[in-house]
């Protein structure tokens, strides 16, 4: 059993087998897990907002889906992963409060999920599975040995995608 690496909000990191990587309590944020099954290198980004180009204050690259995913791919390649073998799994993007759909904060989770998928498509990384939306928080764990992505929520069974 390896160690568990923790990724905070607006943060990203990579891990190699037998280690695992986690981020706790995703709400409207998205946890993007990338995995290369041959080199057994995994990466996890905890993004908060969809698009860095719409923000004036965008120095923090791990905060946004577009720049966060790019940086994660770069870090994984540097560690020995191959981009052509990478697959993605995403989770999060919940609507924590049932506020009216038109408001900016009401649909941020859905917009984060959409932007993450768009960026993955652009980079040609297949999205293998997702567990997004609904109205509850999620803790995620990516195991670099198997590529399994575990999703834990309050009062629910662990989901493995």
């Amino acid at each position, binding site marked *: 059993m390896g160690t568990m690496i923790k990724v*905070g909000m607006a943060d990203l990191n990579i891990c190699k087998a037998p280690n695992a990587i986690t981020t706790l309590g995703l709400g409207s944020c998205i946890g993007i897990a990338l995995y290369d099954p041959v080199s057994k290198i995994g990466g996890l980004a905890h993004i908060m907002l969809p698009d860095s180009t719409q923000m004036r204050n965008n120095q923090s690259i791990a905060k946004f889906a577009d720049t966060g995913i790019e940086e994660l791919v770069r870090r994984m390649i540097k560690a020995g992963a191959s981009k052509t073998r990478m697959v993605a799994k995403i989770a999060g993007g919940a609507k924590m*409060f049932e506020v009216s759909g038109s408001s900016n904060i009401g649909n941020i989770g859905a917009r984060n999920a959409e932007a993450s998928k768009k960026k993955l498509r652009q980079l040609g990384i297949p999205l293998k599975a997702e567990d997004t939306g609904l109205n509850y928080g999620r803790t995620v764990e990516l195991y670099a040995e198997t590529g399994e992505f575990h999703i834990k929520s*309050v009062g629910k069974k662990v989901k493995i995608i």
Partner: protein
Amino acid sequence: MAEYSLEHVNDMYMDVLKELGNIGAGNATTAIAQMLGLKINMEVPQVKLLTFQELGGAIWAEEETVAGIFLELANDINGSMMFLLNMDSAYYLVNHLMCRDQSYQEPFDEMDCSALKEIGNIISGSYLSALSAMTQMVITPSVPFLAIDMAAAILSVPAIQFGQYGDNALLIETAFGDDVKINGYFILMPEPGSYEKILGALGIQM
């Protein structure tokens, strides 16, 4: 006038926010005491400036289950605010309001959630009326929304709000209680421009 953000706080600004927190939390405590018929003491609120990365784990462990009550604000100030409680405090207040024994720890049903929303509504409302009275501004809150979930997941909502404009979040901690201490947290999330309005209304030059 330069746009004011939490990136350039000075001591004066923090003092004003502390005082707002103090008066707001004082009002809120009085409202709870009246609603529950309890004698309640309040401690001096703490105002903390945190990066949004710190916010998720700043109050509780990230995965601890907590209650968050969220309101949108409109009119002179646009934005939103949140009131947060740990589950012990939530049970204490709801059990009191529902005239139940304090040993009751069953999951909240619809009626309990409704009671909790109302508690959040009254607490936030009295906080906002203090702010409104001090600044002479009209602040209209929406109906309250409730979430009971992991602390980090609930705090992702204000973190994202703050994250759009900068890297800091402002947290007001208020502790009150009689035999049981209740810890509540306010997070005020004004949209850009609203900080200037609040400070301007209070006669603070920037």
